[in-house]
């Protein structure tokens, strides 16, 4: 990346913390990219191929990391990067081979980068011993390197000026391609600077199927302020016609770079007749005849250039500089004969390694305002934002939503007031407009929070590779839906649970190779990681083709550990048995492996996922495989809820969990196996009375339930009519329960707030929200409620559990919520 310093208007900005923070996020981004490239490289290698471009990408990433970390005094990172860069340099220059051992080292490095970054942020101790071990291993590999190949480059009619600007790597690629017998082509292309990026990408895409682009060289000819001419060197197996056809365009010329006839006769001094005028001009002034066949060294020095210069000088002593070519060859054959930039008279400044250069031109006043405006345009279009800032914005939107509610009520009052009738329409319009813009703002903020799940999938891919190697099981990870977007905060919290599940899948699921062969499965196991959006939810599936989970084994293990009783065990369906793995302390293993089996896996997975408002489901078939399905809300920041009233209190049921709401009548209740159920569209639906779940049953219209706390007005009941109630059918994953409520208030978007300390342990509640009239609505945790209802054999049992005021499982009395000041 080139950076320019211009003198002029000063802007003093403190670098300190902000720069450091940016360093972290930038380094993290690079490490993530590195990880992706390595995985791709691993994939290529396993298929027996190689990808010079990928190796170079990896090299460049480490190179950048090294620069960054050096800048910020991150010594450990910088040291690691330095060694790694050496290794990668050797790799890309073909001095060492990309073996699986080398790949392992590279993967370890990515792992360590992550830990070093965590340590630098203060989240973990520095992995000093590991880094030391890796550095030693890197050193060993470096010693194994062999020499590079001999040169064939000199056999081609290449401008020494061109060769003079090739980096060592590009030179290596050129040499490798020529050694492989590819032909060399020179394209001259005129680009508009404004569109060069896309035009270049286009050209690259057209060229790639036919060969490799070695370098792009601005010729400095034929261009003006708005356009530039590039000379592009391409190595290809295709013939000239094919290549010309592939890249054909108005401003493109393609010609072959010919081998000097000297290839077979190293001392022949006359180059073959050139193809067109331009190249003739160059060839005539390119007086190289002899070609040295001695192999150049692969590192340091400028052997190749020396070689060519020497050859040129030896053959003809033409000293007059050529008239037109872009790179005048030096008049003599020694190093240093290239005038800087081909401009005679330019003093060659000394370069001190310490960075002290020649004292030079004074800083001039600098650019005018218009020019500055132009230059500002090209700075990057993205900004990094701390998620807490977005949370803050979202909270403000939440407050505004409350204001909106108040305005709505006000507008309604004004409408009904005959004195104010005149302003009513205006107020109404204002309210509508406010409403619309607020919704847009909310969506905008939400959009910013969304990141693709691919971020976490990349990490998982690395883990799969590592675990499967440790375990000597071959596993293929197939990812779909990596582009599915989800709240950044959720992504952060997902990696641990997903890692657990993947470890389990490899450790317990995928059989070893021999066993797989025996049962007729492919030797390589497959773990599929699928993500897709489903309404307001994101569904994640982790599916393996391993040996599946045997309900009998699980039940036996659960019995052994006393997680279920014999009688409970007899009653359980296979699906219920599978969910036992989510019980704390569950494990089928008596031996603890390095990977899993400590019995602290799946219950934590479940807890973590439910903290995110999600649920985990298992389905498994013995011998076929296991599928875990995680259903998560897209965002935690804001949710749409259905407002309900139960016993005069307002509750919010997340709309995402609401399937439908129907008018309910006690006559619809049936009792089935001691549970209250109703039939809904031919299916049996377990029902639960929310009032009973939350101990609000004592409440009757017009009756005070608590003398100390004023009770909201009871719903109006017209005389002679029975109070209507409603059944809200909630579903989470494939579980459904109908909750009986008194009244449906309506739908609203709310910003959910965490419950204060005293309510934190309350089950069945996800949080609370302000309703805008100084009242608080409790947000129901649909998943927890449904599980609670379904897990109890009778509704009475949970109700009983909820009623015990001092029991640790105590449900809470939402009456407390009003006076509780502990909302955050």
């Amino acid at each position, binding site marked *: 990346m080139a950076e320019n310093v211009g003198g002029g208007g000063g802007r003093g900005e403190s670098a300190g913390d902000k720069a450091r923070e940016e360093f972290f996020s930038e380094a993290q981004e690079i490490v993530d990219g590195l990880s992706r490239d390595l995985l791709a490289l691993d994939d290529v290698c396993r298929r027996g191929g190689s990808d010079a471009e990928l190796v170079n990408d990896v090299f460049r990433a480490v190179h950048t990391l090294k620069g960054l970390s050096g800048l910020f005094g991150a010594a450990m990172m910088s040291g690691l990067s330095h060694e790694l860069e050496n290794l990668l340099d050797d790799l890309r220059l073909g001095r060492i081979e990309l073996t699986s051992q080398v790949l392992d080292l590279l993967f370890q490095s990515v792992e360590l980068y992550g830990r070093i970054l965590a340590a630098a942020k203060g989240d973990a101790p520095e992995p000093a011993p590991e880094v030391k071990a890796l550095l030693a291993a890197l050193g060993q590999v470096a010693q194994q390197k062999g020499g590079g190949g001999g040169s064939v480059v000199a056999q081609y009619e290449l401008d020494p000026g061109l060769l003079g600007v090739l980096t060592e790597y590009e030179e290596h690629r050129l040499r490798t391609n020529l050694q492989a017998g590819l032909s060399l082509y020179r394209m001259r292309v005129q680009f508009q600077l404004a569109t060069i990026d896309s035009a270049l990408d286009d050209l690259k895409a057209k060229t790639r199927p036919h060969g490799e682009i070695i370098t792009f060289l601005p010729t400095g000819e034929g261009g003006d302020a708005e356009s530039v001419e590039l000379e592009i060197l391409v190595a290809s197996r295709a013939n000239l016609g094919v290549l010309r056809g592939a890249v054909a365009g108005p401003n493109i010329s393609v010609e072959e770079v010919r081998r000097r006839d000297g290839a077979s006769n190293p001392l022949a001094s006359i180059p073959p007749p050139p193809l067109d005028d331009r190249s003739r001009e160059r060839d005539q002034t390119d007086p190289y005849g002899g070609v040295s066949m001695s192999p150049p060294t692969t590192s340091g020095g400028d052997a190749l250039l020396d070689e060519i210069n020497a050859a040129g000088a030896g053959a003809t002593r033409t000293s007059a500089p050529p008239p037109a070519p872009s790179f005048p060859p030096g008049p003599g054959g020694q190093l240093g004969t290239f005038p800087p*930039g081909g401009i005679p008279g330019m003093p060659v400044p000394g370069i001190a390694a310490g960075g002290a250069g020649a004292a030079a031109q004074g800083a001039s006043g600098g650019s005018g305002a218009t020019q500055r405006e132009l230059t500002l345009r090209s700075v990057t279009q993205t900004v990094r934002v701390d998620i807490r800032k977005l949370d803050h914005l979202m909270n403000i939107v939440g407050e505004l939503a409350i204001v909106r509610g108040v305005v709505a009520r006000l507008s309604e009052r004004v409408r009904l007031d005959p004195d104010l009738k005149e302003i009513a329409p205006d107020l109404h319009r204002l309210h509508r407009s406010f409403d619309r813009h607020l919704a847009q703002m909310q969506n905008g903020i939400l959009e910013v929070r969304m990141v693709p799940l691919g971020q976490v999938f990349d990490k998982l891919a690395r883990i799969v590779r590592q675990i499967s190697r440790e375990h000597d099981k071959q596993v293929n990870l197939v990812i779909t839906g990596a582009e599915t977007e989800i709240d950044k905060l959720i992504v952060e919290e997902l990696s641990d649970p997903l890692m657990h599940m993947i470890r389990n899948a490899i450790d317990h699921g995928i059989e070893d190779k021999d066993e797989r062969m025996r049962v007729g499965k492919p030797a390589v196991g497959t773990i599929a990681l699928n993500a897709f959006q489903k309404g307001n939810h994101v569904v994640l599936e982790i599916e393996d083709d391993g040996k599946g989970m045997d309900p009998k084994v699980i039940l036996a293990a659960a019995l052994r550990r006393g997680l279920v009783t014999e009688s409970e065990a007899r009653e359980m369906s296979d699906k219920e048995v599978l969910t036992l793995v989510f019980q704390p302390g569950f494990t089928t293993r008596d031996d603890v492996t390095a990977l899993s089996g400590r019995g602290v896996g799946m219950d934590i997975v479940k807890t973590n996922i439910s903290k995110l408002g999600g649920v985990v489901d298992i389905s498994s078939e013995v011998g076929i495989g296991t599928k875990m399905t995680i259903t998560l809300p897209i965002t935690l920041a804001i949710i749409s809820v259905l407002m309900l009233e139960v016993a005069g209190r307002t509750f919010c049921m997340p709309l995402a969990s609401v399937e439908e709401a129907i008018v309910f009548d006690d006559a619809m209740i049936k009792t089935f196996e001691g549970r209250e159920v109703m039939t809904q569209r031919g299916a049996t639906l377990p029902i639960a009375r929310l009032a009973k779940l939350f101990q609000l049953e004592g409440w009757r219209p017009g009756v005070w339930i608590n003398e100390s706390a004023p009770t909201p007005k009871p719903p109006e009941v017209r005389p002679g009519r029975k109070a209507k109630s409603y059944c809200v059918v909630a579903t989470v994953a494939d579980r459904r329960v109908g909750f009986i409520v008194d009244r449906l208030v309506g739908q609203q978007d709310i910003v959910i707030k965490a419950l204060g300390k005293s309510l934190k342990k309350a089950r069945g509640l996800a949080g609370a929200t302000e309703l805008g009239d100084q009242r608080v609505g409790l947000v129901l945790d649909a998943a927890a409620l449904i599980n609670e209802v379904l897990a109890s054999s009778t509704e009475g049992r949970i109700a009983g559990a909820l009623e015990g005021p001092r029991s640790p499982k105590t449900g809470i009395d939402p009456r407390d919520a009003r006076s509780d000041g502990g909302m955050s």
Partner: protein
Amino acid sequence: MRAILEDPASAAAMGAVEVTEAQSGFDAMRLLPRARYDLIITDINMPDVNGLELIHFIRKSEQYRTTPLVIISTQATERDVERGRKLGADAYVPKPFAPELMRETCARLLGTARPVSDG
């Protein structure tokens, strides 16, 4: 880099500067003619147009043939740096470098070096 050069410490060394970042070699080529820059800093390992090619290009332009030009890169590419020097670069600052070194180098090239108290 921007942080280093726009830091108040750098103003002490060479006066206030305004930094423009180019995203790539082409971006640099696009930016250069549009303003008058007093100093150019480039890496060597860059995608597409490499640093050497960029230097070559810069030195051919009438406007920038004598503008101070600094290479920042690693010791690993010694040969490339040497080529950069031959193409007309004025200084080479190996990465990783201390911010002070960068500031000092720029200040010297800009001829604005002034005595700075230690540290």
